[in-house]
């Protein structure tokens, strides 16, 4: 089965506004998800530049879906619901 790819933006805006905490995502993944996902850090995804007013950093991509104001919990519940 193909793994779900989680791309965490480590551009400066995302990093400062909460992205720093997302780098620990793998430590918080529940056992049933651990082998289903691949977590990668990425250079600035450029999403902060043309974000809508209510979509804020940090940005994370789950495959091609974008999550804004991402937190560890938000990412986990998003993947779990897929």
């Amino acid at each position, binding site marked *: 089965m193909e793994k779900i790819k989680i791309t965490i933006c480590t551009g*400066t805006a995302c990093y*400062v506004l909460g992205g720093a905490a997302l*780098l620990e995502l793998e430590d918080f993944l529940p056992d049933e998800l651990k082998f289903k996902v691949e977590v990668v850090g990425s*250079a600035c995804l450029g999403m902060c530049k043309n974000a809508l007013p209510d979509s804020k950093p940090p940005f994370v991509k789950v495959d091609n879906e974008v999550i804004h104001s991402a937190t560890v919990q938000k990412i986990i519940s998003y993947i779990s619901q897929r």
Partner: protein
Amino acid sequence: MFVDNRMTYLKREVMAAVASLFFGNKLKEEINRIPTRIIPRNSVSHRCCVEKDREIIRQRVIASLGFGLEDEKLVDESLLSDFAEKALDRVSPDKQILSFIDEACKACVRVNYYVTEVCRNCVAKPCITNCPKGAISSDEKKANIDGMKCVNCGLCLKMCPYHAIVYVPVPCEEACPAGAISKNASGKEEIDYNKCIHCGKCIRACPFGAVVEKSQIIEVLKSLTGSGKTTALIAPAIAGQFPFSMKQLSAGLREIGFDYVVEVALGADVTAHTEAEEFIERMDSGDSMMGTSCCPAYVEAVKKHASAFEKYVSHAKTPMSYTASMTREKFPDAVNVFIGPCIAKRHEGLSDDNVDYVLTFEELGALFIAKGIDVSSCAESDFDLGHASPQGRNFPVSGGVAAAVKKILQDEGRESELTPVYINGFNKKSINLLNIYASGKSPGNLIEVMSCEGGCICGPGVIANPKFAANKLKEYVDSKEV
């Protein structure tokens, strides 16, 4: 110390919004819109309603502009643009570096003791009989404490045979090592600056973000965009903060508008040498011990709360102080801005002629966001004034200062005389400990004290989590990058 949560992000977002307007030359014109921009109408409220969230953001903006919130009438009657105008005209920053957002503060209990549902409404009622203030009464279900009469003595908790009474802490008061925070008669939290050691633990401890720093970001922005030169003095802890290299950081700082970038680890090298020499002198003259001197929160605690230990504190100046004086000599016309993890440094900077302003890493992060700089994509640039030793760069972790002193003693063949003792993280008990050491009961002869547990890399103004910061700093120290 390290608490990273929505509160800290919101704080950074506010600072970035203020800095962004400044860079765009529309601070006065648009600052009144910040609360509605950050808390849009359809957002999920963190408190009772969107309006209250916005009001708290508004007060946070006032603190970002460098003002306190003590004068309620002024806070209520002024627009953010009025404050912005005053900030732009201000000549020198405020001496008292912290303030409280009372609106956010009200979430905390007035009294620390609460009778839970576990109360059996027993016949004996030892809580009522023993309360010295007659503050407890009972209804048909359970005992209740009258908040207006209770003096927080805690006797009721000790007396209850069912353990039905709990202690409910006020996080900022609990975190303060110096007992400097308490409620005044009207229930508003106040800081007693005769006791405060400026450690900043209260800022991160408050889950409502009610303790705010009076930022100097406006002063720094004025210098960055003005015609004069500005130097960034970067604390060694910065090496653990960001997911990019120090050379990229140096380039990023120049892109913000800093003309020179100097690593404060240079000053740490001087501090270590001075402390090592003084250590030898002290041991030769029969002294029992020496305390380090680079953590300003602990030095302030010694002055205010453990005066018996004062004579043992090394006379070496802090890395910031040495670096600032080197920089002033080299670039006499430049404004010196120290950028670090520390709140106490802001206080120290106010009384050091060579340090003009102090920013935290969080505020630096806000400047990057405001300028739209992605540092990972910056080119590389060198530091000015040369490079520090690995030992100097390793100062900001617990054990780092003692290790640097030891390395120098090694070169003189006297390292066997050194028995370091570490106070890693300052709390209420540490003050007692210093007094005990001063009475001649010290287990070693070099007392290294760091107010923040883990060292400066875990300070109140950091961005990275401690694990990431410690690994990244170690990587940098080991690389011996020049």
